[in-house]
């Protein structure tokens, strides 16, 4: 039986998961949380390319990858 095709909602769920990893990063090891968020966002971007109607979400995923780069530079040493 073929799997159900992914939808934009599936892509957004991955992005939202990445958002939560970033938002709650200070409760755990931020470096690990940011890396997990990056990985989730990369997968979301890849999936967005294959899902009709999900192109804006690919942009959202890349925007967040830039956000995480900035966050790491802002983190107090």
């Amino acid at each position, binding site marked *: 039986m073929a799997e159900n095709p992914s939808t934009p909602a599936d892509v*957004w769920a991955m*992005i939202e998961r990445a*958002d939560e990893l*970033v938002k709650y990063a*200070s409760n755990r090891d931020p470096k690990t949380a940011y890396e997990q968020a990056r990985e989730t966002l990369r997968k979301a971007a890849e999936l967005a390319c294959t899902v009709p109607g999900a192109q804006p979400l690919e942009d959202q995923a890349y*925007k967040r990858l830039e956000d995480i780069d900035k*966050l790491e530079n802002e*983190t*107090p040493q």
Partner: protein
Amino acid sequence: MKLGRGKEDVEGRVPPNQRLTRGWPVLHASPVPKFNPAVWSFRVWGEVSNESELTWDEFRALPTATVHSDFHCVTGWSKLDNDWEGISFTEIAGRAKPKPSATHVLVHAEYGYTANLPLETLMDDDVLFAWSHNGEPLEPEHGGPLRLVVPKLYAWKSAKWVRGVRFLDHDERGYWEVRGYHNHADPWREERYSWQE
């Protein structure tokens, strides 16, 4: 001056798909900034007659207000019965004297974080800039020294580490609002995402 809702039964106070928390989860999309009262300032500018930039001491010398209210995070938790103390938004607006053209406000916080709100929403009597929570100084991880509190909307509108407000003659989406989250953010309508608009 005591403003906002009183304590009442929990039933009917938790919006759809929210769960109660007794703790206070810490979440934010930036590091916790260091507070230096000697250089901290609160700027009010834009569509107002009286632009200003207040020092921490000047800000703290304004008339204070307290609000008892609930708090709802878009990640799914709600924290009831919070006692906030600070400066009401109406106090800030009254001093700034918004021009008739002012319709919205962009709240500015550390690290360039912003949150946009209609001026009408901010003029509610339960909206304030808080430095105290439940009788204690607001802890840095919860937005201390100063955060906005907008009880009727999801908590990302209640920006932490606020440094100023810009009055606008138009709406301008803030940090999360350009990242797919709802422009208005009413928890009772579950206004979580921009595609619901």
